[in-house]
């Protein structure tokens, strides 16, 4: 059922944009027929198909990392933002784009290559990830880890503020545009890399799927059921680091998918079983991000909203609604 919905939203998403391409034309193109217009061919295959795939991958990556973090930290508000991964990626990009002027050196002349931004974001995410791993190795308490993650995030945010104070308008704009998030800036080569990263990032989830169910009862009970908490923690950090890190690197920070989607999955399927919740969150994450992207295209106009703004506009009220609807902690 959800798979069908995913396919449906996938095609609807492709038909939406500044040039509206009818839904049935896309389906008939898929069945081997020709588009009546040549330009549609280019729009679909060069632009919209990669974008839709990116949305699917980013949706899966973010919501699966969110679910892992919520269960591991037993905190309904945990998400990829919380471990400071997005902030780390932001810091990487900020350093690349803005630090140049602060030190009087220009790292780039002319336009910034998109690859360079991706690499900077990935390096930033990996840096935070390494710091987090170091912390995880030193402190045994998960709550401490969560707080340290939040602090890393604030720290990275502060450094970005300082950098932006000293940088000039052009560089600030490059950073701001990146921080608004975009699904449309991944092209063929990157898409394959993103896909590979997602596959690798999902592996620990498969390995630990049973342990996540045990974690529902808390660390002590999980231990009594033979779960190795240290190993699970490493698995969680590596998996969310790769998934959320690569999603942020390729698309910029995308808010609220990681935190809201797992709650939607729990609400829809009314279960705490991670063998259901992981695939459900993945599919739901892909669907929600496709829908958000569709909204951001502002159907019928040539304008496009930043995706991060749309997910926040959709996600924030949803989280508030969830909190008001019932005791948040009982969602687990």
């Amino acid at each position, binding site marked *: 059922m959800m798979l069908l919905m995913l396919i449906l939203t996938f095609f609807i998403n492709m038909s939406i944009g500044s040039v509206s391409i009818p839904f049935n034309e896309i389906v008939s193109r898929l069945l081997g027929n020709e588009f009546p217009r040549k330009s549609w061919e280019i729009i679909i295959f060069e632009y919209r198909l990669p974008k839709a795939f990116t949305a699917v991958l980013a949706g899966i990556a973010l919501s699966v990392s969110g679910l892992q973090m919520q269960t591991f930290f037993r905190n309904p508000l945990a998400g990829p933002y919380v471990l400071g991964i997005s902030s780390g990626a932001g810091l990487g990009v900020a350093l690349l784009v803005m630090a140049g002027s602060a030190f009087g050196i220009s790292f780039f002349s002319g336009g910034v290559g998109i690859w360079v931004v991706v690499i900077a974001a990935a390096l930033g995410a990996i840096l935070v990830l390494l710091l987090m791993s170091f912390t995880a190795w030193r402190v045994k308490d998960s709550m401490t880890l969560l707080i340290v993650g939040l602090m890393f995030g604030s720290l990275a945010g502060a450094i970005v503020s300082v950098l932006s104070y000293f940088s000039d308008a052009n560089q600030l704009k490059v950073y701001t545009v990146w921080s608004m998030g975009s699904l449309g800036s991944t092209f063929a080569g990157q898409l394959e890399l993103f896909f590979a990263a997602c596959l690798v990032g999902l592996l620990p989830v498969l390995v630990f799927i049973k342990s996540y169910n045990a974690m529902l009862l808390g660390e002590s*009970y999980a231990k*009594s059921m033979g779960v190795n908490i240290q190993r699970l923690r490493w698995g969680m950090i590596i998996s969310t680091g790769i998934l959320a890190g690569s999603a942020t690197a390729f698309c910029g920070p995308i808010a609220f998918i990681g935190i809201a989607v797992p709650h939607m999955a729990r609400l829809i399927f009314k279960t705490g079983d991670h063998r259901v919740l992981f695939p459900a969150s993945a599919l739901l994450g892909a669907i929600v991000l496709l829908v958000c992207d569709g909204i951001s295209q502002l159907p019928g106009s040539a304008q496009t909203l930043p995706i991060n703004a749309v997910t926040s506009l959709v996600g924030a009220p949803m989280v508030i609604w969830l909190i008001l609807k019932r005791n948040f902690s009982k969602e687990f």
Partner: protein
Amino acid sequence: MENRKVVLRSKNLKLGYRKNGAKIVVAEDLDLELYAGKLTCLLGPNGVGKSTLVKTIMGQLPKLSGDILLHEKSIEKISNVELSKKVAVVLTDKVSLGNVTVYQMIALGRIPHTSWHGSMSKLDHQKVENAIQITKINYLRNSVLSELSDGQLQKVMIARALAQDGELLILDEPTAHLDMINRFEVMHLLRRIAKEEHKAILVVTHDLDIAIDTADEFWIMQCGQPMVCGTPEDLIISGRINLLLPDEKLQFDLFSGKVQDASPFKYPAIFGNETLARWLKSIIRKNAQSFSELDIEISIENAPFLLTVKDGDKLEHFYSFQQFIADFTIR
């Protein structure tokens, strides 16, 4: 005898933890044994190290020295997964799960036995059913956990531990926060599990009277003193149960099996029905400060209730304890 089978044994065990490099010893020289089919209650004041002992036995806290043997094999040499198939626990941790049904919860107990993806075999379902039957919670099986009362939830947690199918069950204060009837039910359920399912059960509890009624063995911990182990009844008649009551003002009353004020007290002469006399003593004792008239004779009879006080030649009749005590404490 078959039920003398030792499941867990400790030798010269020293408990404690390390803080800033220094060892803090909680208890030492512990030679403990847990038998299959026996319910053991661990009693002692807060902070004496009961949880430390339990965590050490569970293998979650490293011991300082000595050895803990599970079936004659040191638990440090047993892997986490192997240990979880042998030892199941019910902890004091609050479990707040909204979307999980009782059946799913109990099925979580099968986690150590299932393969990596966690799907349940026929045997797994059978073990869950069995745990539901033993704990008699079939009527709850499809309820969601957030709908359960504390007593029901505790039975579900016991069922989950049962489904884990270990030979040793450890329960940390399973009767805390429960009302009287649920305490009674939970402890008797545990006794039944020990006997019928042949499990070794260790219960940390503060409920002395229900523990006396249900336990086969007591372990009593007291600050700065060696641990006392033995059959509850033996500990009672030898007076060693008073180790639980280091305060001079309290003592364990051999006859009533209750903890009482230890200061000597002289009752007036009481005649008549023994049961009623017991409660008459109780109310006099309770009002001891203001009860001054001790040179009286009281006779008490039942159906209809009649309490007669003979003070010299004067006779007074009372028709309830309330009347009696009101009259005698005002004077």
